[in-house]
């Protein structure tokens, strides 16, 4: 694992700012351009440090697969934010031509092999990509991202067992945001209910399980980086539990057409009436937290940090403009891409 130099630390902050701003503009689209975003959209705000810290460990030929909460990863990989926004707006210029939408932002050229909209089903797929990497013998590693809820699915257990048995070059990054849609982890997870970290699940598969503060990108980088080194060295998989706090609700409201979509309050407030929990999480918001750290360490001046934020705002404004101005696909194109 490479030492994080100051340039890399600034890069990390920049990517976090870009993810945050992208998600703010997705959320804002519901008010600014009602009706443009359809269906169900899930945001990564709050998980920026975890996403960027994880992806900062990768080499260009490495690969990843994720869940439907997928906006953050391609931004870090260098995917064009305009094409991503256009995809979420269902436009012809979208990353997937409007065929996938918010839940399926895929960029194969950059190693992002895809997502599943079904909880945990991407885990065996990423494991299969790791099997491919193992036998291709080009020192590739696969990162597999999923939520805490997925760890109660058979797909999780089956995959971790096989990956450990075959010593596959994969790192399982569980973004534990403590909520399964609107259900708290201690209501559905035996480890959580017993007061144990979810990383203990790794024990059942004879692989290392570690818990990390997902709000600290450098801690995530160190932890995931060690796991990536281990995977690349042929020693097999690791389960990393990255504790994050999702700053938005699970997704926008689920209603039939005709009722404008919007994001409700976070479940802590909306469902459990626990505003204190949410306010505490806001105080620990990883984006201002890392900014403050870099300024305090003398890596960035406040002005430079402001410039990074402004640049992210400008970029994402351009992404929104591109998405709004882009054309919708031709209806008859719906029959393309069914078969290869």
């Amino acid at each position, binding site marked *: 694992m490479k030492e994080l130099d100051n340039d890399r630390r600034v890069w990390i902050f920049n990517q976090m700012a870009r993810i945050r701003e992208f998600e703010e503009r997705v959320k804002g689209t519901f008010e600014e351009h009602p009706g443009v975003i359809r269906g169900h959209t899930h945001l990564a705000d709050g998980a920026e440090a975890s996403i960027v810290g994880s992806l900062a460990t990768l080499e260009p030929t490495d*690969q990843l*697969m994720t869940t439907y909460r997928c906006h953050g990863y391609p931004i870090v990989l260098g995917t064009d934010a305009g094409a991503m926004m256009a995809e979420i707006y269902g436009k012809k210029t*979208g*990353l*997937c*031509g*409007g*065929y*996938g939408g918010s839940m*399926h932002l*895929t*960029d*194969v050229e950059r190693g992002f*092999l*895809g997502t*599943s909209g*079904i909880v945990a*089903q991407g*885990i*065996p*797929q*990423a*494991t*299969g*990509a*790791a*099997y*491919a*990497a*193992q*036998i*291709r013998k080009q020192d590739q590693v696969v990162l597999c991202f999923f939520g805490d809820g997925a760890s109660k699915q*058979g*797909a999780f257990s*089956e*995959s971790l*067992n*096989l990956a450990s*048995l*075959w010593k596959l070059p994969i790192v399982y990054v569980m973004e534990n945001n403590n909520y399964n849609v609107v259900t708290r982890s201690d209501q559905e997870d035996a480890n959580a209910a017993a007061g144990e970290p979810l990383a203990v699940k790794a024990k059942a598969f004879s692989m290392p399980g570690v818990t990390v503060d997902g709000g600290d990108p450098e801690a995530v980088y160190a932890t995931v980086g060690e796991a990536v080194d281990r995977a690349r060295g042929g020693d097999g998989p690791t389960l990393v539990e990255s504790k994050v706090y999702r700053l938005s609700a699970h997704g926008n409201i689920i209603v039939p057409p005709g009722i404008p979509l919007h994001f409700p309050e976070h479940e802590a407030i909306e469902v459990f009436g626990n505003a204190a929990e949410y306010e505490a999480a806001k105080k620990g918001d990883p984006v201002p937290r890392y900014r403050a750290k870099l300024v305090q360490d003398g890596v960035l001046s406040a002005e430079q940090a402001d410039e990074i934020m402004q640049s992210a705002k400008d970029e994402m404004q351009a992404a929104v403009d591109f998405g709004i101005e882009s054309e919708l696909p031709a209806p008859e194109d719906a029959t*393309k*891409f*069914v*078969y*290869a």
Partner: protein
Amino acid sequence: MAEIPYIAAIEMAIHGEMERDDSVLYFGQNIATTENDKFLQAFGPDRVRVTPISETAEIGMAVGAALAGYRPVVELYMAEFMLVAMDQVVNEAPRFRYMTGGQVKVPLVLKAGYGFTAGWAGQHTGSLAALFMGWPGLKCVIPSTAADAKGLMATAIRDDNPVVFLHHYMLTLEHGDVPDGEHLVPFGKAEIRRAGKDVTIVATGWMVNRSLAAAEKLKAEGIDAEVIDPRSIAPLDLDTILKSVAKTRHVVLVDQAPRHASVSAVIAGDIVEHGFSSLKKPIVQVTGADTTIPYSEPLEAFVIPNEERIVAAVRKLLK
């Protein structure tokens, strides 16, 4: 040309394709458990692996390996075992290409036996083929002869899409002439197993044999039946069926599955929509009974279409 069993023809195709293309992988339950395994000996442990009994992981990993550039063949043994992993089969593998706007392809083969009506009772005997129709992006083939078993498997492995390859357990040891070397059977091209002019019988898998036997019996009565084996049900060669219907103007559809879960129900709908004017009389379907397959032999025999029921259906239709 060699006379070999149906199951050996399938293995021959997998072996041949693995020789031809290094990206073909073969993994699944209870294969290659010793170093004497012929696939393991020929292709090594990178490409041939035994898996735990974890269908979701096996099929999901096949999807991931396919996305990453390989061509996995998954040994699933029994079609029912796919039921525990259906999301991967129908809601993941066939959708990736489409949802990514054509960025990826998912070439994989899910090899599974079905219809083991030899006392395997309720949960290992289903004829599940129709379950794999109607998932755009997914293909499904059902060989009824040893030659087709080889040719359809080879084509399935070369296809750039996910393919469910269903082999009928009752045909496992049926011998047939199988071409040596490369033998490819195209998808979407039905085979006329027996040409005839009076009635069109469409059947898949084991039911093809029973339909051919029925046709021979009917011949003695002066009835000339045409027997069509679609071979691939997704895509389905409706043209060959409709041409036959235009000629015979009578249709009997034979399927081992229960009526509303049968391939024949889908074919019947297509014939009515596209060939109604050819029909002199309503289509007759001879399907499995609407029961779970029972264990005891007389009970089991009662619920599965046989030669006599096919003959009786044709007689009644042409009366």
